[in-house]
Structure formats: structure tokens, C-alpha cells
């Protein structure tokens, strides 16, 4: 029985019990096997499988059918079909053991056969098998025609509102087109929990209680916002406008009430931020710790079924390997925004704060986990404060989901690739291609072998092959328009053009079976049959994907309804991603069907094409052929070529670009197409994969500044580097004023050396991934975390936190190691520890600057030395910085010339400077005024962000750009104020 969960158009949840679908797989049959042998195989299997069969009675193997299929692997010749045995077993769990028997070797004693063979399609999950065979795709509409089903009205097995039973041959699966392309009104629940950790530790489910759970339920496609806003708190909590507050004295009651809420609201999708790795496992484990696991862990839709959690590992070439807790919630999809955003977007930080700042344009306050305990221990007002924060954390994922249109994009992706929605997040790319391949293969009577995976299990990265090519860049600053020619969907089009597929690959030992005119050799030496002889499956899949994308794009242009547009846009994006992942599927050495012959051929064709394009363009666009000048290809990477036509006019460069694209395209087999996309003008080419330029797609005005591989986004760099690099590029590219850029850099360096740079610009942060003792070498941020734990265990960063630090001039030792110089920015601020400007200059600024300026000016090193580096200011060390300062005595000195004042003097200036008092006063005043302005702006910005005027700002979000600044301005302002007061106030004066 398969349970299909969904909603109907009215929004009622439905569960359809689909009966009668049997799991099966194939093996290749030897021609000698007659009916008796097949019978014997079945019996032997039954005997051997009895061990695995949980359901006693009933044979494991239901029947064995003989059918005519072809293997997808390698070109099989014109009459590929051979006999295969379709072995149908009674329950899905038996497929794997049965496969093991065949692959391990099986003696059929009664007929004296020893079978050891490859199985086919035995690694297909039952769900996927069902979906492929019934043509169901993820997120489509299923119709149960009247009379084919039976409604279960009482004694329902699930929590769904409607329950129906149907045979698998009876329902109708509608392809997601036309009226069936709409997205069902799915119920989405967003959750966030708060836990009360002990001082200095990250909360642990075994010990630390859950204190608040916020839940929001909304319906996709409706705009009026959440239908349920609820927060459950441990201990009393003052009411919150627009949200239901439920307070509990006992944590167990709260958890159980939340379970009820979950079941009552019956969401189809559970979302949240980092729920997969934190919130859900925490709740699960917490219930175990409270010994209410059995009662609490029933989150699924099947009545009474216990939700299970296990450790799991996710490994994918595209997304890397990481461990996670796998919680199976029957009938509900878990969608973690963190995972999704990490996959789809490259950001410098993935905290909810910076993600919402990036996508929603609003900062979010961040309460440090050590502050949570204090708020919880307070009164109902402080708990209310926390509850508001918790609700916001539940609401933001909801808004992100809407803003990024994840519901639409993922449902469309599921529809296009034909996998269930839940696969998209928990599995890699390959399952999607595999599903498409299965569907295609089934139509064409191909079967897919279960290939033994050879890969990291055998050590190393498997067999490598040469990747894409990069043309040697001609480094320089181009003040003429540079046209960029791109191959549209390069890899998919190569596969189509050259008919690269499993089914068309001709192994070297079988070359003789195919006439030479029917096969072609790829540049890396593998042979494939030509499309005229047999079309491959992958090219067909790709063709369909790209054709569908073209259709979706055309529909998108015509559509005006924003919801339908969202669906169509999601679809065309899904189609593009799937087309590109087909190539990756063949190259994934840990994947289901790695075939390096295909992937290596693809890249080799790609390399050849880039080289050929360069040659063609440079031969054709010459003065000899009547063009203005000889053109030059200055750079090329993977699928693009940069051409300098050496004309000064953008319009002309675009004309030539378009012409060249057409001209070169003719040299390649269709559908390979070179497209002219954009012009860079001016263009700063620094190195391989490092360039920047103004991007033009219309001749009137540039679209934006585009840069690749430059220190503008990486988080390891401090903000200063990013700012400087961005500003330099703006000055050079947009203003075309190299002198201004140079002056700017010199100014920044001078400011840096004179200690005038805002500290928050200098903060570097690195993630603390494991405990300090587990690192082998001494690393700055790890050592700092240890140091901070000694100072105050409560606020020290725990594993998983990011550790922000600045580099200071450490102690007396001249040659202090880098790891000794890292210091907590707040600590450095409070104790006036001097910043190591030289370190920032040498290790952070100089490299990126030299790279940028190298193509522009003769001797970029001159930026780093000269007049502007002469004046160095160091903040007065306090006694906390150690060393000799601990023994120093503080005396007042003249504010202007620093001459020490006679002890006991209350004056601000020495007798020499006294005549200039008003000037010196004005200068101090100027500082005060500037700081006062900043103070006001910074603290009110925080107030706005926290959304309250009458309550103090608690936020300690170190991701926020103004966090350090507001702290620093507080300190600086008090210092400046004290200095100002030395001039005397008016209090003691009369008038």
C-alpha cells in the first residue's frame, strides 16, 4: 500500500491509500532459461528470502515474467532487445536482499545453474518506482474518478480530513499543464523554538529545557498572511498583539500541547530556519529526556505511528558532505530554509539575521543565548520580550519562503524531474536525473543496470578527467569595449549535438560492430554512434527539457497574473537547472551511474570548441578581411570567450559581437549556439577567473558593475577590504578616474595607519567548527575562543558559533605569532588595545590592491609606501594591554602638545598653548559633535530594528555592521566628552 498525501482545491487534506502496486526488478535472462528454470529461480529465492520476510506466510516472490528489454549501458546494436526476467516481490523491503542474492551468486540446485549477474533497476526506491510506473510527478494533481475509490468515513487511519482507497491502475495523474499547472493550497507551518542554555554552553537537549515554541500556519498562494500565530511559553507571559499566547508551568504539558497543535493544524510542509539540524531534533530528544517520547513523537499523519529519528549522512558533489539527523515525518515535508538558501545562494553569512537583511532588506535583532536565560528568569514582561523575538524567528522563514518563491520553484522542480518534493532537499542532484532517465528508459524499453559504485570507498576521488579549459588571460586594463560570446547551455548542447549517451557509447572492444561512418570519436578518444543511427536517451531528455524551458519562457512573457508568473518562472528555472545537472550525473563518481567516457567527452568537446572559436574569430576579424582592426581574444573560460574588437564604440562592438556569434555558430553542429550577450567596457582583467568591468547589454547605458573572483563577497576578509576594493573598482571603472582611485587608496592607508578606521571594518570572523582541543595547530580564532572562555564562560563562543576578531599589537614580543594577536573586538575596544595596522596593510589590503592596480599602473607598489604612510598614530595603551603600561602612572597632559601639566593643575592646556585655546577647543568640539550625531543615528537604527521605542536594545548580533560601531561610538564619545569638559563647563560660572 502506498499512501499519497495532498490537499484538494478546497484546502482539505487528503490521504489516498493506493493498493496493488508491486515492487520488482530485472535480471538479464539467459536464452537457455525456460519456464522450469524460471520456476526454480522463484522457488530458490523464496527459500532464501524467507529470512528477510517479516510478514510470515505468502511467498516472497509473487511471479517472474519474461520480457524483452535492452540495457541502457553501451550501444547494443540495432536489435538491442533481449530477454529479461522481471522479478516481482511481495514487499519493497525484499528488493534489496534479492538483489544481494543475485549479485553475490545464487545456486539453483534443482536445475544446476549458478547465477551471478548484474541486476537492473533494483536500486530504484519503491516510491520512485511507483511514481515512474503511474506517471505521477511530485506536486501534480491526481484525480480519483467517481466510482473507482472508496471513502473511509470512520476509524480513519490518518489525521487527514479525507481518506480514500483506490487501486493503482484506477487513478488519473494529470501532467502539470494548463488548468493542472496551478499549485495546491498547501498548509505550511513555520516553527522556531527557544531553549534555555546553561552559562557558557550551547543548549543540549538532555539537560536544557525548551522554553518557547512559536508556530505560524499559512496557506500557500494566499496573501493575507498567517492564519495561525501561536507561541507557547514555559512560565507566564504577557499577551502579544496579534498572536495567541499559551503559557505552561510544566515543560511536558507544553510539548504535548504543541504536538496537538501540529496535528490539529495538519500542515503539509513544516518550515523553519535550521529546523533539520536544531529545532526538530531538539524537540525530539528533549521528549526522550523528559520520558514522554512515546506520547510526544507522533508528528506524522498516520494515527499512532511513532516518528523516528536517525543519524544520517548527506553526500553530494555539488553540496558537499555533512551529517544530519533524519526525522521521518509521515505525510509532511520538512523544508529547511537554511539548507535551501545555502544551496541556492552564495552569501557571506547564513545567519537568519544577515539572510533576512539580504533578501528582505531588514535587520533582525539577535539575542545571544546567554541572554535568553536571563530573560526567561525574569518576569512575564521579559518572557514576552523573548516570545516576540521567537515569533519573529518563526515569521521570517515564512517571509523568506514567499519572497524567494520556494514553494513554486521547488514544486516546479519536483514536477519537471518527477521526484517527490521531499527528495529535493534531502537528496542531491543525481536522483532527479535518475528519475528522468527511468521515465525515458521505460518508454523505450530500456532497463538501467545497478552499477557497483566505485569511488571514495576505494580511496581517492575516483578516476579524474580533464575539466574545462581556460584560455590564458591577457592581463590588462581595456578601455575599449570587450564583447563576450557565450555558448548557450554549453554542456547540454554538446551532448545533444554529438549524441552522447549511455546508449550510444561504443566500447573500444566493440568498435568493429559499428561501421565507421556511423560513429564519431570525441576529442578524448571515446566513440559514440551518430544520432542518425540511434538517438541517445540523454540527448532526448535534454531536448525535451530545453524545449519545455523555451515554452515556459514564452508563456512567462505572455502571462500577467503574478501567481502564474511565479509558477512559470519557477518552472523555467527548474528546467534549466535540470538540464545542466545531466552532465554532472554522468560525471558523479559516487552517483548512481557514473560514466566518465561521457563526461570526459563533454568537457573535451567544450575545450575544443573554445579553441576553435578563438581561432575562427581571430582569423576572420582582421584588417585583411575589411574590418577596422585585427581583433584579439583576450580571455576565455569554460563556455565564454572575450573578444577585443578594438573599436571604441559600444554599439559597433555589439554589432561585431552579434555577427561573430552567428558566424562562429555555423561552424558547429546544431544545437550548439554561440550567443552574444554583453559587452564589458571598460574591462579590468586581473588574472584567471578574476576580472571586473561595466556590463552593457544595451548601447545607451551600462547595466551594472560586474566582478568575478574579487574580494567583494568573501567573509574571511574584513569589511575594509571589501569596501576598498569595491570603491576602487567604482572609481576606475565607472568614473574612469585612476588618479582618484589612487588618492582614495592612499587616503585609506593613511587613515588605517593613523588609527582612524572604524573598528567594525576590521573585524574578521571565522567559524568555530569543533572544540579548541581538537585542532592540531594553533589557529587564531580557536585560540581566541579559549582565551575568551577563561575570561567569561557565559559569553564565549561555543562550537558552531562564528568567532569575530581583530588583529592587535600583541604584548612585548616583536615576532608574535598571528594566533597570539587575535583579540575579541569588544575587549580590544574596552581596553584600548592598539590595532596592528601593519598586519592589515600587509596581509589583507596589499594583495587585492596590487591585483587591481597592476593592469592599470606601472608600479602599483608605490601605493603602499610614500608620504601617506609616514604618519602613524597608535592609541594610548591602557594598563590592560600589559607590559610596561601596568607600571605607568597617569598624569594630565596638555591637550594640544601633550606636555605634562604640573600636578594638581586643573587646566586643559599648558601655558604655551593657552593662546590657541579656542582653536583647540573647536577641534575637540568637532569630534564630539560628529560622535554625537553618530551615536544618535546608530542607537535609533537599532531601536527601529528591534521594533520598540520603550524597551532597551538587547541585540548582540555580531553580523550586524553597526554592532561594533555603536559600542565604539559610546566609548569614544565619553572620552571626547571628558576631554571637552577639561576646558571647564558653565556650571561653575555665573553670568
Amino acid at each position, binding site marked *: 500500500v502506498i499512501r499519497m498525501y495532498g490537499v484538494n482545491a478546497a484546502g482539505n487534506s487528503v490521504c489516498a491509500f493506493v493498493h496493488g502496486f508491486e515492487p520488482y526488478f530485472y535480471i538479464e535472462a539467459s536464452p537457455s532459461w525456460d519456464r522450469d528454470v524460471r520456476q526454480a529461480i522463484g522457488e530458490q529465492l523464496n527459500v532464501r528470502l524467507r529470512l528477510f520476510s517479516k510478514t510470515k506466510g505468502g511467498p516472497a516472490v509473487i511471479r517472474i515474467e519474461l520480457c524483452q528489454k535492452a540495457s541502457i549501458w553501451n550501444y547494443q546494436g540495432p536489435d538491442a532487445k533481449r530477454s529479461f526476467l522481471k522479478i516481482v516481490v511481495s514487499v519493497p523491503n525484499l528488493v534489496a536482499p534479492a538483489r544481494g542474492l543475485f549479485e553475490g551468486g545464487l545456486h539453483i540446485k534443482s536445475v544446476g545453474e549458478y547465477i551471478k549477474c548484474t541486476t537492473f533497476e533494483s536500486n530504484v526506491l519503491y516510491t520512485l518506482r511507483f511514481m515512474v510506473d503511474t506517471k505521477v510527478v511530485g506536486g501534480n494533481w491526481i484525480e480519483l474518478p467517481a466510482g473507482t475509490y472508496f471513502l473511509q468515513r470512520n476509524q480513519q487511519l490518518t489525521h487527514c480530513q479525507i481518506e480514500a482507497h483506490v487501486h493503482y491502475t484506477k487513478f488519473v495523474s494529470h501532467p502539470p499543464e494548463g488548468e493542472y499547472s496551478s499549485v495546491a493550497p498547501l498548509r505550511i507551518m513555520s516553527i522556531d523554538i527557544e531553549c534555555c542554555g546553561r552559562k557558557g554552553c550551547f543548549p543540549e537537549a538532555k539537560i536544557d529545557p525548551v522554553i518557547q515554541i512559536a508556530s505560524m500556519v499559512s496557506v500557500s498562494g494566499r496573501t493575507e498572511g498567517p492564519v495561525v500565530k501561536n507561541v507557547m511559553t514555559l512560565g507566564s507571559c504577557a499577551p502579544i498583539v496579534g498572536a495567541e499566547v499559551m503559557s505552561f508551568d510544566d515543560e511536558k504539558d507544553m510539548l504535548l500541547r504543541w504536538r496537538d497543535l501540529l496535528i490539529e493544524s495538519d500542515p503539509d510542509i513544516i518550515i523553519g530556519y535550521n529546523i533539520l539540524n536544531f529545532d526538530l531534533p531538539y524537540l525530539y530528544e528533549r521528549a526522550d529526556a523528559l520520558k514522554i517520547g512515546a506520547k510526544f513523537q507522533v508528528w506524522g499523519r498516520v494515527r499512532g505511528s511513532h516518528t523516528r529519528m536517525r543519524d544520517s549522512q548527506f553526500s553530494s558533489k555539488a553540496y558537499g558532505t555533512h551529517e544530519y539527523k533524519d526525522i521521518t515525518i509521515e505525510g509532511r515535508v520538512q523544508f529547511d530554509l537554511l539548507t535551501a538558501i545555502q544551496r541556492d545562494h552564495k552569501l557571506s553569512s547564513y545567519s537568519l539575521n544577515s539572510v533576512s537583511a539580504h533578501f528582505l532588506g531588514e535587520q533582525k535583532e539577535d539575542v545571544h543565548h546567554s541572554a535568553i536565560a536571563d530573560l526567561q528568569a525574569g518576569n512575564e514582561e521579559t518572557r514576552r520580550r523573548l516570545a516576540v523575538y521567537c515569533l519573529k524567528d518563526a515569521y521570517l522563514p515564512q517571509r523568506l519562503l514567499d519572497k524567494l518563491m520556494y514553494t513554486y520553484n521547488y514544486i516546479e522542480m519536483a514536477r519537471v524531474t518527477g521526484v517527490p518534493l521531499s527528495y529535493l532537499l534531502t537528496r542531491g542532484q543525481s536522483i532527479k536525473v535518475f528519475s528522468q532517465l527511468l521515465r525515458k528508459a521505460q518508454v523505450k524499453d530500456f532497463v538501467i543496470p545497478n552499477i557497483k559504485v566505485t569511488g571514495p570507498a576505494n580511496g581517492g576521488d575516483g578516476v579524474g578527467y580533464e575539466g574545462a579549459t581556460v584560455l590564458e588571460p591577457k592581463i590588462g586594463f581595456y578601455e575599449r569595449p570587450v564583447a563576450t560570446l557565450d555558448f548557450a547551455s554549453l554542456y547540454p548542447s554538446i551532448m545533444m549535438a554529438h549524441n552522447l549517451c549511455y546508449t550510444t557509447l561504443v566500447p573500444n572492444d566493440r568498435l568493429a560492430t559499428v561501421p565507421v561512418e556511423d560513429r564519431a570519436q570525441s576529442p578524448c578518444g571515446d566513440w559514440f554512434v551518430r544520432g542518425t543511427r540511434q538517438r541517445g536517451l540523454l540527448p532526448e531528455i535534454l531536448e525535451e527539457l530545453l524545449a519545455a524551458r523555451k515554452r515556459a519562457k514564452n508563456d512567462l512573457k505572455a502571462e500577467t497574473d503574478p501567481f502564474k508568473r511565479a509558477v512559470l518562472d519557477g518552472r523555467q528555472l527548474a528546467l534549466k537547472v535540470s538540464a545542466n545537472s545531466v552532465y554532472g550525473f554522468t560525471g558523479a563518481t559516487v552517483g548512481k551511474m557514473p560514466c566518465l567516457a561521457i563526461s570526459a567527452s563533454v568537457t573535451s568537446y567544450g575545450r575544443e570548441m573554445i579553441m576553435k572559436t578563438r581561432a575562427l574569430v581571430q582569423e576572420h576579424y582582421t584588417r585583411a578581411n575589411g574590418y577596422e582592426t585585427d581583433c584579439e581574444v583576450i580571455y576565455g573560460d569554460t563556455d565564454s570567450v572575450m573578444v577585443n574588437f578594438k573599436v571604441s564604440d559600444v554599439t559597433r562592438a555589439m554589432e561585431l559581437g552579434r555577427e561573430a556569434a552567428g558566424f562562429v555558430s555555423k561552424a558547429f553542429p546544431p544545437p550548439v549556439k554561440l550567443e552574444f550577450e554583453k559587452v564589458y567596457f571598460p574591462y579590468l582583467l586581473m588574472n584567471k577567473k578574476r576580472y571586473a568591468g561595466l556590463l552593457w547589454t544595451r548601447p545607451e547605458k551600462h547595466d551594472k558593475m560586474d566582478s568575478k573572483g574579487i574580494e567583494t563577497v568573501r567573509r574571511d576578509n574584513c569589511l575594509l577590504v571589501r569596501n576598498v576594493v569595491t570603491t576602487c573598482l567604482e572609481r576606475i571603472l565607472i568614473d574612469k578616474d585612476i588618479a582618484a582611485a589612487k588618492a582614495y587608496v592612499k587616503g585609506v592607508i593613511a587613515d588605517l595607519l593613523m588609527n582612524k578606521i572604524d573598528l567594525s571594518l576590521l573585524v574578521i570572523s571565522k567559524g568555530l567548527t569543533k572544540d579548541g582541543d581538537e585542532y592540531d595547530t594553533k589557529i587564531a580564532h580557536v585560540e581566541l575562543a579559549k582565551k575568551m572562555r577563561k575570561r567569561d564562560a557565559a559569553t564565549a563562543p561555543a562550537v558552531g558559533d562564528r568567532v569575530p576578531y581583530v588583529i592587535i599589537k600583541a604584548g612585548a614580543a616583536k615576532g608574535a605569532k598571528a594566533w597570539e594577536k587575535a583579540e575579541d573586538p569588544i575587549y580590544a575596544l574596552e581596553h584600548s588595545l592598539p590595532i596592528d595596522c601593519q598586519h592589515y596593510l600587509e596581509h589583507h589590503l596589499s594583495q587585492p590592491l596590487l591585483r587591481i592596480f597592476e593592469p592599470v599602473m606601472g608600479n602599483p607598489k608605490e601605493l603602499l609606501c610614500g608620504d601617506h604612510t609616514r604618519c602613524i598614530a597608535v592609541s594610548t595603551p591602557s594598563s590592560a594591554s600589559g607590559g610596561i603600561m601596568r607600571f605607568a602612572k597617569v598624569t594630565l597632559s596638555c591637550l594640544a602638545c601633550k606636555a605634562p601639566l604640573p600636578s594638581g593643575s586643573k587646566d586643559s592646556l599648558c601655558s604655551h598653548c593657552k593662546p590657541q585655546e579656542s582653536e583647540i577647543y573647536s577641534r575637540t568640539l568637532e569630534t564630539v559633535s560628529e560622535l554625537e550625531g553618530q551615536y544618535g543615528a*546608530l*542607537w535609533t537604527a537599532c531601536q527601529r530594528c528591534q521594533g520598540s521605542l*520603550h524597551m532597551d536594545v538587547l541585540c548582540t548580533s555580531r553580523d550586524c555592521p553597526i554592532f561594533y560601531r555603536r559600542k565604539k561610538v559610546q566609548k569614544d564619545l565619553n572620552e571626547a*566628552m571628558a576631554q571637552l569638559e577639561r576646558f571647564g*563647563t*558653565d556650571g561653575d560660572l555665573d553670568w
Partner: protein
Amino acid sequence: MQMMDLEGPQSSQGLTARYDELLAPVTSKDNDTSFNRASATYSNLDDRFRAAKRSYERQYAQLYFSRLMLLKEVMLARVQQLWPGVPVCTILEVPESKEVAVIGTVYKNMKLKPSILDEYSKDRGLKAALGAANFCSGDDSLVLEDEGARMVLRDVAGPGPAGGSTTSGGGSEPLNVQEIVTGLVLAVRGVHEPGGDFIVNAVCFPGMAPNPHPLPAPVPHRAAAATAAVVAAGAPGDKYVALASGFCLGSSKADMLKTQLALDFLTGNLGSPVEQQLSAQIVRLVVAGGCIGQLEALAGGGGGGSGSSNPYNRQAQGVALQPVRDLDLLLAELSAGMSVDVMPGAEDPANVALPQQPMHRCLFPAAGMQGSFVRATNPHEFESDGVRLLGCSGQNVDDMAKYCGIRDRLDIMQRSVESRHIAPTAPDTLTCYPFHDKDPFILETTPHVYFVGNQPEFATRLLGGGSAAGAAAAAGPVVRLVTVPSFVRTGTIVLINLRTLACHPLRFDGTLGL
């Protein structure tokens, strides 16, 4: 209340004409007549704006909190009077679908409001394009916050066109988003729709506070006839306070000729005995900020900036202080002859956060010698001959003008007086000191004269007093609102008659008629 005509323009033109002939060398005749400058009592009330020791450890929440607490009592009484029978509750107690009144601080969400966070965002072009004129937009919205929670306010009619009818004077009125700025304490009457926003039927403001004491002389129901000359308007014994602002010494626009004319007039060195007589009746000059033009070269000290100017040079700063020295001389000359109060303004050498502290004595070595020279705070409050005057150098009104849709400066001042708060946008958009146990900008009493300096033009209005009925004049509080124009732009100073509160602009035109 009623609005009065501006008495100004006509009379000032008359005067200007006469000055032109008076600029000619004085012949002789009555020149020996000597006038004795009138004197009046003076008490400085700046104490609440003074902070001897300033510490920036606190946040702003407590300022808002004290503001709400101090005005809440007033609002309660006000609501009971205006909306009898409507229950008052806190936001957390608001029931659904029942009409209630709620008191709180208002916060206005404005998408165009500049934020320091913008410095870190990528598109800087937007900010530059906006300029600094006005940050209102059609989708601004209001939230009301009390000590417990906040809720979104929505107009009963939905977002209507901004502008419309101006305030009707302290009664209840419909919600008009663009007439409200962040930080005002007010009450709203309306219904909380289930699961949604608070639908507002009417709002009300605290209303004018009572005067500290009645005026010594009764306020005339109608002002003096507009055609009459300044001198004729008053009785012989009348005393005047002169208000000026925006001399902007050192700026490129400063006109020393105009300034000198004004100075000569004030010290009694200009004009015929008629003018000298008038001058002698001026008991005090208040300079409401704007003494110095922008001093750019001084800005070497601040953090962060990496301007292209050479930051290593200290010599240039000596020159930059020249205007301050000029100011000192000018004020010394003035205060030798009369009492002068000097308030700091936005560009003056004082701290920027409100309340601005008096400019330091070391800046005024010459003027500081005179006993009649007062370095005042901004805002500045004092009482002279029983008349209470309160003034600002203009930052408060300028800032409100940026964040609301009211164009007329007098209307803004009126809203401010009726809300019993002179700087509601502080600290949100106007920098101020983080007070923790008080809010000095609250008007516990309404001054008799409220003036604001550095405004684009002169305007005045009398609030309260001779109300529409014209009956018992002493019934309500009275206030004379005055916008003191920037001198550098208009050449105008303003005289206030301490007996009648009549208000007269005097324009000095320094053009040579070429």
C-alpha cells in the same frame, strides 16, 4: 483660535524706504537727543536644558518611556473630556470589535527614511538622488506603542490622500498619517479588527498646556492695525525683545553690510530719533543660532572619513576660526550697548545633540567680558517682564518638516505646541542626549512666545486667547508663534512687543541699488 494677518511686510517696506534716505550722512539737528535704553526684568530658565556632566552610557528607550509616562496623565484627562464614555485601555488589553481609546507613542514607518545602515548597502545612488528635502511617501504607515506592545494603526477610510485639512486645534480629528511624526504621544479611538490592525476613527493630542501665569497685560483681541508703523503700533512705554538668527558669518552668502546695518540699528547708531527711540525700547536681543556659516576646514578630526583633502595639515585651521573671532567682536559691540542672549545653532561651535550647550566662553574672549552677554542653551527659555519666551534655533522644526507632510512652518509649530512637545522627532531622526529620568522637551507650561530661528521666512500666529467666541480672554492659554527668518537670506530681524505680544519684522536691505 484664529489666524492673524502678518503685520509684517507692509510696515517693513515703509521702513526700508526711509532707511535709504537715512543712509545719507546725518546732518545735525536733533542728533544730540539721547535715549536711555529701557530695561526689563530677566530670569534665565535654561536649567532644565543644561547638563553639566554628560554621559553616553544609556540608550534612548528611557527617554521615550519618561515622555510617555509624563504625558499619559494629561492624555487620560483629555480623552475623558473629548470622548466621554469611551474606555481607555493599553494595547495588550484591546478587545476585538469594540471601540476603545488607546494612548501611546507613535512611530512612523517610512521607507525613504535614511538610516545609517544604508552606508553598508550597495546602491548608494538612491540616497544621493533623494537629497534631504522630505522623506514622506505614499506608503508610510503608523504604529502606536505603549509600555507593553505596539500595534499598527489604519485609517478608517483607508489610505487617503495626504495633506487635506490642517489641524483644527487640539480637538479630535481623523487620522492623517502625513500630519504625524514619530515620537508624538497621542490617543487614538477605534476598533481592533479581528486578527488585524487597529482601525482609527479619531486621534487626539494632549492640547496646549496652560501658561505658567497669565500675561501681565491682557492680550488684545485684535492686533494693531497692520498699516500702522511699528512705532505707532505700540504705546510709548512699550518694551521689545529683538529676535534674530542666521548671520552665518564666514559663509559665502554673509552680507556684512546688512549685518552692520542691523547692528547699528540695535545699538542706536542708525536712523532718526524715531528709530533711535524704537531701538532704545528694545530690552534684549536673542540670537537664535546660525551665527557661523559652515566651517568645513575644521572637520579634520572626525572618524571614518577619508576625504581627498590633506588630513595632515593643521595650519589651515587657524584661518577657519576667523568667523568665530568676528562673531566675538560683533557680539562684544552689541553687548556693550544692550543685553544679548546667544543660542547655538546647527553649524555653530557647540555640540550638535539637543539640547545644545552654550558656546564655550573661550570662544568669546571679548564679548565674554560684558556682563550683559548671555551664552544660552538651545532650546532657550527665559522670562522678561512677566512674559515667558521659549525658542529654538530651528533644528526641531526643520527635522519635523522632513518627516511630515505639513508644509507651513507655523502649522508644524502649532502641532508641536498642541502636542506639548517641542522636539518629538528626537531622538529618532534628531540627535539628542539620552536623558533617562526626564524629557526636557515636554512643554509642561506653554510659553507666551515660542520662536524658532533660521527659518525660510518670517511668519507669526497667535494661538488661543481671543478665541472665536471672543468671550473670556483669560480662559485658555495663549502663545505667540514666530518663525524668525535666517538673516543671511532675508535681512530680517523680528521685534516682539512684550505688552501686546505684537510682532514686527524689520528688514535691512544692504543692496546698493546698482
